[in-house]
């Protein structure tokens, strides 16, 4: 393969990556703002309710219960919503990047994105199995 071909291919890949980077940046920036907004409301509610941060019993985590807790305006609802969103943010970045590479026809990076999500999926399954 000639040096010119490699350089052209690399330049094309960098242009595609630059567009996808902008998209991924928006997901991370706005996601962090929204998630920390939830956490802030939860912390203020927690302080106003006089929750003892260290000695209070830890509320159980249930993804399905979060909408109900939010409607009931409980501090733990806002905290769990914000923390769940925070933990999910890097995954959102991988999904957006993977979709971008799919649109650009870069199969290798699509495969990499899929494998990263697969590893996280295995983490979730392993955690649930161990918990059970």
């Amino acid at each position, binding site marked *: 393969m000639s040096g010119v071909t490699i350089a052209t291919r690399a330049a094309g*890949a960098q242009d595609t990556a630059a567009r996808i980077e902008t998209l991924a*940046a*928006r997901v991370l*920036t706005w996601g962090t703002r929204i998630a920390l907004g939830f956490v802030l409301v939860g912390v203020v509610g927690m302080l106003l309710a006089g929750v003892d941060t260290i000695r209070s019993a830890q509320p159980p985590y249930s993804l399905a219960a979060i909408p109900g807790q939010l409607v009931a305006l409980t501090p733990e609802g806002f905290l769990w919503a914000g923390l769940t969103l925070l933990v999910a943010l890097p995954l959102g970045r991988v999904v957006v990047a993977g979709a971008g590479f799919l649109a650009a026809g870069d199969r290798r990076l699509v495969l990499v994105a899929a494998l990263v999500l697969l590893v996280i999926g295995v*983490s979730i399954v*392993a955690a649930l199995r*161990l918990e059970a």
Partner: protein
Amino acid sequence: MIAGLVLLAGGAAAGVFGSLLGLGGGILIVPLLTLGFGLPLREAVAVSLVSVIVTSSASAGVYLQRHVANLRLGMVLELFSASGALVGGLVAFLLSEQMLAGLFAGLLIWVAVSMVCRSESAPALAAPAPAADVPEPASPAFIDTLSGPGYRAHSLPLGMAGSLFAGLVSALLGVGGGIIKVPTMHLLMGVPLKVATATSNMMIGITATSSAVIYLLRGQLDPFVAGPTALGVFAGAMIGTRVAHRIDVRVLRWLFVVVLAYTAFQMGQKALGL
């Protein structure tokens, strides 16, 4: 209420130190929660991982927007750091608190020593191998698509191995693992320091998520502790970026080395059951 405010302040201090010294807040949050608040080490690690995700997402958003981070290289390497974190997240539940404390003390000493070495040999770190001196990679097309403007990455297998190890350490001890990822990319793969730091910041999010999910679903994450700490770390990181140009980082680095050495001593005592 007071404990919540102290957590906010402690998180902010960790965020300021972290952003000024290029480290995640985890290296300070775990000792703060275990030694300061008496939290079990695993719970402290879970809270620390959430804080690491906050700083990673916030800074990676900026680095990606400015095209400083290398998304393609980062995605390939984070596959390996995520795999390491998966293993570490599972192994962490098999190790005793004392063993984890001992490992953390070892990590603190390593970070302190590497910070001393960095301050004495900064020029060597700032000079990656020029692209022309790099041997031709076995698969030029793929490695070249992982490179960026003005540099060519090389030694991908070494980068993969380093990332795997960084993920393992991150999940076991609740740190971002940037202390391993940045030298791996910069010194072993020829990526410029600025790009390596930005890319490592982005990768840290996925590494931490791989294990944070495990801690979250296993009920090891306390939202009443994680909430104020995460907010504090975010605020501290914002303050750190704004005051960075007014502070003599060399003085701060030495102060930090002293804090690390003292914390390592405390953790060592915990590990030995003293």
